[in-house]
């Protein structure tokens, strides 16, 4: 039948893109690195590479969680606010209430998880669109973060806490960078090799098909919002260690950077297609671009313009390629 002939044009290449990660963003990243290596004297060095890793830890941890949400066809606008709430909960418990720091960190992660649980339940039980549910949570979590100290910052944590983000173990990785790499590796393993990962893709591909196939769509959906929120909270802890302070205005606009990293990495906003590998490349593109533009002394305002253009081009190229 000719139908079979015409319809059999799409083959293995697309599949790789679907499950393993796009090649387009990787090519873009390599070109970007080559360009910066030639146009600056400082870009191509181990020291600078490690700097870039330090600079992307917060974004990287958040983007891993966001990948899960976007793979199910959802979106989470609350991650920046949840990050701030986690920071304030931790800072307040440790420095005002006087709890031990590790316990405060744990409490902060639980608080973030609760934010995700509430968003997830609103989305599943009341059928509120994810955009709206997490927009509401964005406002709620930001408000709570401000209420804890009435908008004041809290400074000064134990030295060991700060050193997590500064001290390079064996001269290579800081604990926070290792944490980010661990989060990404675990996410990758889960999405690629666990039955639960397949469920995330199935729900994103078509919630109705997934439900009729016996997958608990509501459980999967709530889980990804909880995960994204806990990872946003974890990113907040990392940011606190980097700054040695917490303030309720932290993380403003981070949700957009996070979404951008995931989307640049080739994950489809309509769900069901994409990968953590792609997200890692997306994070690196944003990190390398920021770093390179600083090295080239480009003004921060122009940087915003350039990053916007890159987002638009990356997604346009991906859409074009998929056709």
């Amino acid at each position, binding site marked *: 039948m000719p139908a079979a002939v015409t319809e059999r044009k799409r*083959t293995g290449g697309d599949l790789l893109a679907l499950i393993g990660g796009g090649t387009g963003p990787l090519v873009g990243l390599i070109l970007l690195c080559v360009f910066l290596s030639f146009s600056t004297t400082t870009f191509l060095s181990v020291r600078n590479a490690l700097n870039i890793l330090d600079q992307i830890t917060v974004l990287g941890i958040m983007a891993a969680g966001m990948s899960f949400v976007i793979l199910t066809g959802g979106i989470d606008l609350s991650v920046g606010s949840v990050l701030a709430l986690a920071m304030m909960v931790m800072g307040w418990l440790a420095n005002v209430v006087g709890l031990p720091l590790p316990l405060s960190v744990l409490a902060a992660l639980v608080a973030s998880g609760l934010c995700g649980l509430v968003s997830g339940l609103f989305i599943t039980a009341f059928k509120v669109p994810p955009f709206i549910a997490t927009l509401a949570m964005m406002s709620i979590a930001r408000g709570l973060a401000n209420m804890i100290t009435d908008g004041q910052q809290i400074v000064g944590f134990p030295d060991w806490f700060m050193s997590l983000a500064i001290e390079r173990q064996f001269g290579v990785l800081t604990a926070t960078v290792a944490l980010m790499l661990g989060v990404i590796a675990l996410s990758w393993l889960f999405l690629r090799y666990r039955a639960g990962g397949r469920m995330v893709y199935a729900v994103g591909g078509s919630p109705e098909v997934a439900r009729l196939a016996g997958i608990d769509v509501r459980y999967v959906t709530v889980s990804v919002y909880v995960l994204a929120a806990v990872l946003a909270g974890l990113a907040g802890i990392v940011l606190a260690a980097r700054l040695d302070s917490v303030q309720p205005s932290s993380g403003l606009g981070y949700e957009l950077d996070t979404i951008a990293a995931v989307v640049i990495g080739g994950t489809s906003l309509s769900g069901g297609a994409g990968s953590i590998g792609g997200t890692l490349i997306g994070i690196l593109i944003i990190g390398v671009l920021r770093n390179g533009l600083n090295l080239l002394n480009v003004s921060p305002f122009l940087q915003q313009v350039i990053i916007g253009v890159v987002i638009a081009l990356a997604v346009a190229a991906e859409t074009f390629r998929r056709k």
Partner: protein
Amino acid sequence: MSEPILSLRGISKSYGPLQVLRDVDFDVHAGEVVALLGENGAGKSTLSGIIAGSRPASGGTMTWLGQPYAPASPRDAIDRGLVLIHQEMKLLPELTIAENVFIGRWPRRNGRVDRATMVRRAQEQLARLNLRLPATRKVQGLSTAQQQLVEIAKALALDAKLLILDEPTAALGGAETEALFEQVRKLRAEGVGIVYISHRMEEIRRITDRIVVLRDGERVAEFADSATPVRTVVESMVGRSLDRMFPSVPRPGSRVVLEVRDLTGANGAFEKVSFSVAEGEILGIAGLVGAGRTELVRAIAGADPVSDGTIWLDGHELNLKSPADAIAEGIVMVPEDRKLQGVVVDHPIDENIIYANLDKVGRGGWITRATVRSFADGAIKRFGVKGRAGQPASSLSGGNQQKVVIAKWLARGPRVVILDEPTRGIDVGARSGIYDIIVGLAAQGVAVIVVSSDLEEVLGISNRIVVLAQGRQAGILDRDEANDVSVMELATI
């Protein structure tokens, strides 16, 4: 007969090296209904697209009302009076009927939409189709049949002299189909030329004057008399002789597997339905669109809630809260809408098969590409799916997609398999493959339920038939007492 209004000579179309239409001649006269038949991929859509201006021909000439005709765009074709009505309707639900009828070309006065004129003229078109609805009503909430007629009204408002109807009855029930036919006959009497594309031979026999058959992009046969035996027509479509359409149906066992008692849907779509299905039995469920067939089987598969009644499997009562509960009990469903409910079209075949078997594949929840592939390969081979494991489901034909949906369940060894419209949109040649699978299941002792709007199909493969009418159980017919008349009598109570 008079000169044709539309005349195609030697029309060809190729995409790169692939030739989808080869040297096709095709005429339509005023006041004539011509059936355009062919399997999926035979070139029907391409040909109708060329006529309606949505794609250019690569070769050949067309004449329309005596003038050379080469439409530059669908708009161009519409302006000249040739309108294609798509299978999937394109009405905007939030607009009124009148606004939809005149969409994009609303009558204007002083630069503003002239609502009074628009409503009056739309109402005239509705009257022409005997559609008793106010033109000021929103499209939202109209039945599928009414929407189909609004589409036709839209074409008439454009003063169409040639209508191409692409599977107009795919979503219609018996009574609605009758209403549509009445209008088609009326338009024919008014001198409109109609090209009628359908898979349903029964309809083609009734409504068309002439049959043109395409196969592999070529015009292979024409039957001047629509009373030509179905088998002759189908054989020319598939290019081989058909020994049989339906396999012989095995005799069911006596042990009851599934039983429903006084089952009533939570949304009121069906009430107090009771029947049982035995081991190896194929139970057909027939009825008009809206009779509650799909809702009934969805409830049995745990997809929709019930408000009353019980479901029993092997003598114990079930309490199904989700499809997962039903699947755990061995009740699986091949849903009505393949593309929205059956497969994730963008995902590979093997992944699709895995989605229903995530608890069975791999060790301790760990799955690799290799396990997925080897698990799926078995199913792909067993059901003769024409495709490779890693290919996206969207690249398969309807029949092969359906086989994937069936394949994903059978690895579980289900007790009850429910198939809702198993051959909808699947071409005649591929249907017998699906029937073979259904009968094969019954032969292995599975209790099978088949819902279908295609009467011939229900009659052909069922041991017994439950007929629903307006949500109530109108009767159960044994294979030997069921025929199209006895089923329709019950269905239209």
